[in-house]
């Protein structure tokens, strides 16, 4: 399962990246998609996912749409214009972070 704490700081970036690729998604779908992509390595719990989604919505990065699906109401999340810009920023931040970490883990690799 890996160390879930290491992934915690990147949760918003993961959500934004997924929504950038899928137009609109609902909570459960996001958890399953992450599980599928990481082959079970990363398991996002409801307790972590929904507060993150609500914060991104409050910050204006996500918009919501409520639709009736299979006898119940489903809340879909999608990127706003501001969210699309922020996704690019977050991804570049994450990339730079990974490069920096790589220099600590494998200095020879970074020099090459």
């Amino acid at each position, binding site marked *: 399962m890996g160390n879930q704490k290491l992934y915690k700081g990147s949760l918003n970036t993961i959500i934004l990246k997924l929504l950038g690729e899928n137009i609109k998604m609902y909570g459960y779908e996001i958890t399953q998609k992450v599980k599928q992509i990481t082959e079970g390595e990363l398991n996002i719990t409801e307790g972590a996912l929904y507060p993150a989604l609500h914060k991104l919505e409050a910050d204006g990065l996500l918009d919501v749409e*409520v*639709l*009736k699906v*299979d006898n*119940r109401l489903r809340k879909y999340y999608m990127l706003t214009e501001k969210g699309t810009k922020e996704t690019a920023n977050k991804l570049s931040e994450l990339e730079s972070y990974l490069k920096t970490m790589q220099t600590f883990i494998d200095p020879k690799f970074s020099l090459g």
Partner: protein
Amino acid sequence: MKKLTKENIQFIDNYLKNSDVIFDDIRMEMVDHVATAVETEISNGDLRDFYYIFKEYMVENKKQLLDNNKKFIRKSTYKVGQIMLKNTFSIKGLAVLFILSISLYFSHKFLNITSLYRVLGYTPFLLILLTFFGIKLYKVNRKPLKFSAINQLSIYAVAIYQIYNFLFNPFFFNIDKELAYGNISLVGLIVLLFIACIFTLTAFQLSNYYTKKYQKILDC
């Protein structure tokens, strides 16, 4: 994928409602999450009855779901405060403050001061009262739904009412004595009226937001 029946969904909804997930906007999302998880389990080959699968899921995840509920309520309270603060420093807010200040300053100069205070002193109280009746009417006309942020407005209404009581209250205060403070009383009244206007503006913005986003529930 096998879908849950209306009765199954109602069962999940009632279970969460009885577990203190009282706000419809929060519960709606939780019901969908739990229902989809149960449906996935059934599709993966679990042949047991819905109630057994649901029970097993809740044993594993109930604590997390209820924690999520508390976090959402805290966030709603914070969100209302954030919108009020944003409105306070918005162009609309500053225009209201400007108009209030100018009109009260001139009224204070040219009109009978006691009458002015007697009438305006009640205004914040009336504004908050009207906002609540407005929201109540909005709910009665549709469905008696409970939305987290609208409900959390009451915390701010109580706070404003306490400031109103502290600064200026024509129900209990001796107006003539209050007028001895002159300009300080006037500034207090302007601030209070301004806060009440911002509260009313925020309440209507939130009502509009929920009407727009949750139209599907309201029309059901």
